[in-house]
């Protein structure tokens, strides 16, 4: 929270304040001279003692406002502290005014005495105006600070969430793949080498996520193909990936590593539990605004344990929510024979580019 005086923080505001009172003082002086027939000296002293003095003393009202904020104090306390502060300010204002007049223009002291009550009343009125003004300034400042903090917080939360949701490659996939490689080094070193390279490429792709949230569909597809090839070494003919991709879609944008958990799921429930070959089918279509990807696999409903939406799919839903503000872009269909995931990825149009 900011305790410094706004005039110290914001010289422009201080300048504007000074200018406002200078102009007011000038106008009042002219009125006194031409309408009330005061002499120039008398008018200057009068304006000084009534306006400029308050303009200087009044700046301290900020501290009263700052230390009795509306949020943290009871109404009685606020009212009381303002009443006391106002009396002190007005007393100071009157005292300085009288001293000034006595020193500089003793002739006007009687005129001053006649207007004494009006002047005290005016002092209190000015105090009220100042209070309103400073509360407004205070409110504006804390509002700005709140907005700034909220923006920072939202950015931080989003970053943290994305980091956590980032589909990380399942460690068991890694260990099982390494075991396959271990086996291949003895029987088929060339394939072992190929698998090491594929695995490295996939790991590199999944690790470089901080650079860009989105990649081309072509890139995402190539990397998921790597994933499927590695799994194919493990599962052999049991895993049969099939792709029907509209060539026009390859340039579309897509959050990276968003498809991998879908394939992982399809393998876990479709291929893993099966003893026969299982087709994992990917269909992609697109128009200017949307890239639609459908990934489906048959499965045996008797074997699959019913545990609802897995962590992988829930993470995709959460990521879609964070990136596009819409969790319904992921659709799941389960007819007890086939599991089908439909993902709709909005593409940048000219309006929101």
């Amino acid at each position, binding site marked *: 929270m900011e305790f410094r005086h706004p005039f110290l923080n914001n010289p422009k505001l201080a300048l504007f304040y000074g200018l406002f009172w200078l102009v007011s003082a000038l106008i009042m002086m002219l009125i006194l001279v031409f309408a009330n027939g005061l002499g120039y000296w008398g008018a200057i002293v009068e304006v000084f003692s009534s306006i400029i003095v308050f303009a200087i003393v009044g700046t301290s009202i900020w501290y009263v406002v700052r230390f009795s904020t509306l949020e943290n104090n009871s109404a009685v306390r606020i009212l009381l502290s303002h009443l006391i502060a106002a009396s002190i300010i007005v007393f100071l204002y009157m005292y300085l005014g009288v001293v000034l007049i006595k020193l500089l223009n003793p002739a006007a002291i009687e005129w001053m005495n006649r207007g004494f009550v009006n002047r005290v009343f005016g002092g209190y009125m000015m105090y009220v105006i100042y209070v309103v003004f400073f509360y407004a300034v205070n409110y504006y400042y804390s509002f700005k600070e709140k907005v700034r903090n909220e923006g920072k917080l939202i950015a931080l939360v989003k970053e943290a969430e994305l980091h956590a949701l980032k589909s990380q490659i399942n*460690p*068991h996939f890694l*260990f*099982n793949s*390494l*075991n*396959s*490689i*271990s*086996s*291949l080094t*003895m*029987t088929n070193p060339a394939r072992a080498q190929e698998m090491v390279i594929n695995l490295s490429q996939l790991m590199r792709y999944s690790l470089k996520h901080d650079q860009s949230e989105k990649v081309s569909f072509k890139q995402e597809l190539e990397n998921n193909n790597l994933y499927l090839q590695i799994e194919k*070494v*493990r*599962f*052999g003919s049991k895993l049969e990936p099939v792709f029907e991709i509209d060539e026009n879609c390859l340039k579309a944008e897509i959050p990276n590593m968003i498809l991998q958990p879908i394939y992982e799921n399809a393998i876990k429930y479709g291929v*893993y*539990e*099966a*003893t026969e070959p299982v087709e994992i089918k990917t269909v992609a279509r697109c128009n200017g605004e949307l890239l639609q990807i459908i990934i489906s696999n048959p499965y045996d409903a*008797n*074997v699959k*344990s*019913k*545990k609802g939406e897995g962590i992988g799919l829930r993470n995709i839903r959460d990521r879609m929510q964070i990136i596009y503000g819409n969790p319904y872009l992921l659709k799941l269909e389960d007819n007890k024979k086939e599991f089908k995931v439909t993902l709709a990825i909005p593409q940048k149009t000219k309006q929101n580019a």
Partner: protein
Amino acid sequence: MPEKLRTIIVEDEELARNLMKSFLSQNDKIEIIAECENGFEGVKTINELKPDLVFLDIQMPKITGFELLELLEHKPQIIFATAYDQFAIKAFEFNAADYLLKPYSKDRLLEAVDKVFERVQKEGISSDVAERVENYPKEDFLDRVVVKDRHKIHIIPVDHIRYVESMDDYVMIYSTEGRHMKQKTMHYFEDALNPKQFVRIHRSYIVKVGEINEIQQYEKESYIVILHDKTKLKVSKTGYKNLKEVLNF
């Protein structure tokens, strides 16, 4: 004392089987008598061939390595081989001889073999692996139960279980598909089934809450439960208290 351990490998991945076979090929303590690609095959082959040692994967198609253990009539020594480290504690609760984490080295595998060989010489062939499965580990509730009658293995999703009845050393599981016997205690099922869905109403009965149609008083302080299919089950005093708690009446 056998000169060689008659060994079966139960592992769904061909490459993993090949690796294990080649690591074991020169070893004079091991004789591989069979390989199985999934748990069903594993249960059948182990019960038939009665091996001394089984290398067992945990995550496999159809039934898991742990479920396989529940269905064994013959109890061999077990060495688990898996990529999952979170099952290690459970494996040792089952008195497994060793737990290999994939990928493992040849030395590590042979170390495990030596360990089993020593153990067999001390304790004899039969381990008590399957008997240890009695206490249900409190990680998560069951979502399916695997049972075997004569030559067929059934997987019963927990959702299909209607009630469980105790029968001496066995329990009878009544499901939507029929009834199956399993060598387990009532205590095991009381722990393993979600208490929000299943209530112990009597020393002899655990009932699925959703199956209950009516609770009737038939004597001064005794009650019976009537299921949707008109089956009547006795309720004990404690059982009535349990029912009250779950159903909130």
